[in-house]
C-alpha cells in the first residue's frame, strides 16, 4: 500500500485518465484503479468523492444521473474539454516531477 500523502497530487490524474475512456461512476472508477495497480493502491471512498467534488467545481468533469439499474440511479461523471487540457498539463508535470525526483533516487 502506498501512503496517501505521496500520491495525493495525482488522484485527480488517475480519475481523469479513467474518464478518457468513457463516462463512469464511483465504484467502477475505484475498482479500475485497484485492478490496474494490482491492488497496490486502493483509493479511499472519501478521497474519491472529494476528488469528484473538486474536479466538478473546477469544471474538469460534469455529472449526470444514469439510468436506473437494480433499483438505483448512479451518478455518472463525464470528462470536459477543460478536464482534458488539465489532464495533459498534469501528465507534463509528472514527467518533470519524475525526472527531478529520479535524480535523487539511488539503487541501494
Amino acid at each position, binding site marked *: 500500500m502506498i501512503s496517501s500523502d505521496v500520491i495525493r497530487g495525482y488522484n485527480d490524474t488517475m480519475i481523469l485518465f479513467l474518464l478518457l475512456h468513457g463516462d463512469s461512476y464511483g465504484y467502477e472508477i475505484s475498482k479500475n484503479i485497484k485492478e490496474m495497480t494490482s491492488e497496490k493502491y486502493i483509493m479511499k471512498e472519501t478521497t*474519491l468523492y*472529494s476528488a469528484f467534488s473538486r474536479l466538478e467545481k473546477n469544471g474538469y468533469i460534469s455529472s449526470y444521473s444514469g439510468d436506473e439499474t437494480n433499483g438505483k440511479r448512479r451518478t455518472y461523471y463525464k470528462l470536459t474539454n477543460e478536464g482534458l487540457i488539465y489532464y495533459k498539463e498534469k501528465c507534463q508535470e509528472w514527467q518533470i516531477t519524475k525526472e527531478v525526483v529520479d535524480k535523487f533516487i539511488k539503487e541501494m
Partner: protein
Amino acid sequence: METIKSYLDNMFANMPKTPALIKLKEDLLSSMEDKYNEMKYHGKSENEAIGIVISEFGNIDELIREMNIEVPSPMQPTVPVITKEEAERMIHDKKFFGNLIALGVFLCITAPAIFVLGTTLTGFQIGEDRAATLFLFPLFLMIAIAVGLFIFSGIQLEQYKYLEKPFTLDYSLTEIIRKKKAANLPYFTLKIVAGVVLCILSPLTLISLTVFIDDNDFYGAVGVFLLLVMVATAVTLFINAGTTMDCYKQLLQEGDYTPERKEDKLVGAVASIVWPLTTAGYLLWSFLTGDWHITWIVWPIMGILFGAFSAVVSIVRGDQN
C-alpha cells in the same frame, strides 16, 4: 448491509442536511454497496466484506474540508454519542426504576384492598370504627412507601433527561437495539393483553361472589380485595410493558418522542396524586358518616378508573409502534 448504512448515518450525523450532502451520502452508500456485493460474490463472509468496505471508507474530514461544510466546531456542544455500555446501563435502569414505580402503584392499589378485607374480618369482633383505626396503619405505611418509591425512581431517572435531546447511537448499536426491541414485542403484547383481560374480569369476581354466593359484608370484602389485587396486577403489567418498550423506542428515537416521555411519567405522576387523595376522601367520608359498610365502594371505582386510564395510556403508546 444495515451495518454499512448505520456507519454512514453516523458519519453524516453532525452534518447539515443540504441537497448536495444528501446526494453525496447516497452516492457513497451506493458505491459501498457495490463493493460489498462484489466482495460477497467473490465468497467473502459478511463480516469480512463489511470490514473491508469500512476500512476503505477513508476519513470523513477529507470530504468536510473539500466541500467546505459548516460542521459545528468542537467548541460548540455537539450531539452526544451513546455508547453500548451507556445504552445497556440506561435500559437496565429504566427497567429497574420502572418496576419500582410499578411496585409503588401496586402498593397503592393493594393497600386499600388489605384495609377493606382487614377491617371487615376484624370488624365483627372489635367493631367497625376500631378495626378501621387499627388498619389505617398498614394503609398509610403502604401508601407512604409507594410515594417514596415514586419520588426516588423519578429522581434516579432524571439522569437520563439528556436523552430527551437529540443524540446519536454508537455505530452498529442501532441494529442491536432494533433486534432487542423486536424480541421484546411478543412479551409487550402478552403483558398488555393479560392486563386488559384482568381489568375486564376484575369486577366479575366481586359481582359473582356477592350475587351468586352471598350478599354479605364478608363476601363483599373478599370480592373487593380480589378485584383490587387484579386491577393492581394489571396496572403493574401495563407499566412494566410500557417502560420496557419505551426505553427501546427512546434509544431508537422513534416516533414523536417527547409526548411519549411525558406519558412515561404520567402514570406515576397521576398515581402519586390520585391515591393519597382517594385515601383522604375515603377516610373523611367514612369518619364523618360512619357508613363503613358502603364507603369502600370508593376503592373499586378508583381502581377500575385508574386501571382503565393506564390501559388507555399503554394502548395509545402501543399504537405508535
